[in-house]
């Protein structure tokens, strides 16, 4: 098999790798985009009900992925968002599609981002924002140019966790995705198959590849952050 056809063959490792990478990136991206404002809102005040909300958001972490997967199947299917899905996709469910997979992964990844980012916002406090306001930066600009860069270490930590976790997620992904080659069969599922069937040579190779890829990505993220937020003491 030539390199090119291996890339196109939906059963190949490359396809699974591509799906894993896309899923992890898209999930981390969306979860960060939702998680940052959420964390901000949670960090802004000390009402007890914000603590309640923050704790609630964490709860998906507590359920085993296959169980969370089942509840998400109910949510995405005919008894849940199915009507909406039928409207958009013509099928009565969001499950078994890349879109559905992404929704599920985002819900599972959100707690990591929110917890870590909220802590960062709480640590930096109000003061820098007040200064930005007096310099005529309205809240959005103050947030983007001051609060967010100052909280960068925490945000990046959350994103790294979410990214790594999504790459390795398997129970949830299989449950919502249905293991469709070329659509929802990601690398972790392939790895699982090889482990379950005792196909150790392939398993080690895939695991090694995943780890190497994740290592490079995380290291890059960390170094970029260092560059961005570099401060001489």
């Amino acid at each position, binding site marked *: 098999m030539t390199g090119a056809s291996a890339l196109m063959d939906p059963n190949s490792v490359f396809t699974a790798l591509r799906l894993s990478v896309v899923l992890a990136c898209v999930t981390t991206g969306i979860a960060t985009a939702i998680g940052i404002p959420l964390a901000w809102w949670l960090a802004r005040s000390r009402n007890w009900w914000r603590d309640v909300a923050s704790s609630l958001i964490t709860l998906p972490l507590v359920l085993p992925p*296959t169980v969370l997967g*089942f509840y998400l*199947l*109910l949510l*995405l*299917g*005919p*008894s849940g968002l*199915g009507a909406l899905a039928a409207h958009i996709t013509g*099928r*009565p*469910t969001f*499950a*078994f599609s890349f879109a559905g997979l992404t929704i599920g992964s985002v819900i599972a990844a959100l707690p990591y981002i929110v917890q870590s980012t909220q802590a960062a916002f709480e640590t930096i406090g109000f003061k820098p924002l007040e200064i930005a306001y007096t310099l005529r930066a309205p809240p959005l600009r103050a947030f983007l140019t001051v609060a967010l860069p100052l909280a960068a270490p925490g945000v990046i930590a959350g994103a790294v966790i979410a990214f790594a976790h999504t790459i390795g997620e398997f*129970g949830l992904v*299989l*449950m919502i995705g*249905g*293991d*469709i080659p070329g659509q929802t069969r990601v690398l972790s599922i392939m790895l*699982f*198959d090889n*482990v*379950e*069937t*005792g196909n150790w040579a392939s398993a080690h190779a895939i695991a090694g590849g995943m780890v190497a890829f994740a290592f490079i990505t995380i290291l890059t993220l960390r170094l970029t952050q260092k560059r961005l937020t570099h401060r001489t003491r």
Partner: protein
Amino acid sequence: EQARVAVAANFIGPAKELIADFMQQTGDVIIPSFGSSGQFMIQIEQGADYDMLLSADVAKPAKLLKDGFGVEKSQFTYAVGKLVLWSNNPAYPASENTLRTGSFGHLALCKPDVAPYGAAAVATLETLHLAQQLQPRIVMGMDIAQAYQFVQSGNAELGFVAYSQLHNQHQGTVWVVPPALYPPIRQDVVLLKQGAQNQAARAFLAYLQSTKARAIIISYGYDMP
């Protein structure tokens, strides 16, 4: 005496009843652990002290014997699974016909390389010459429980599941796949080296072949060899 038994996840229901009955009869203690057969293989190779494995297939006990983890001649078939097509959606009644029309959205099964019921489902589709045609509609779960959940939650219109999963519920429509369409799903048990001298394990192995035990297994929707 007590013995530890590794039980394939699809057999959890009957295993619990069998063990309860056995313990009441003999006073021996059986401690079951539930999980996937593949996981048990790995654990046994890494030194887990199970006395006996109730596998979901034939191949794994055979491999354990070959690799020297099992007790010679202790392997036998304790149950034969029945494959069914199940629908929880009145618009798509479970039948060969519905399969052939191919008008449904998703057909659920479990992973053929991991779970025997998945292999049987694929074999059935191949015998019916539907494998190629239905390929794009197939969604796969890790095990029969997930295939079942795909259908139960309404996300898949049809699914190949184990008859034993449906034995005490009456939702939807069921088509019992004729045994001729797929190779039999034999589930084998094997006594492990660890349990070679364990009287409770040996007794439980014997009990599994008793009339009482066979009746219980059949009542859960399995066949016997």
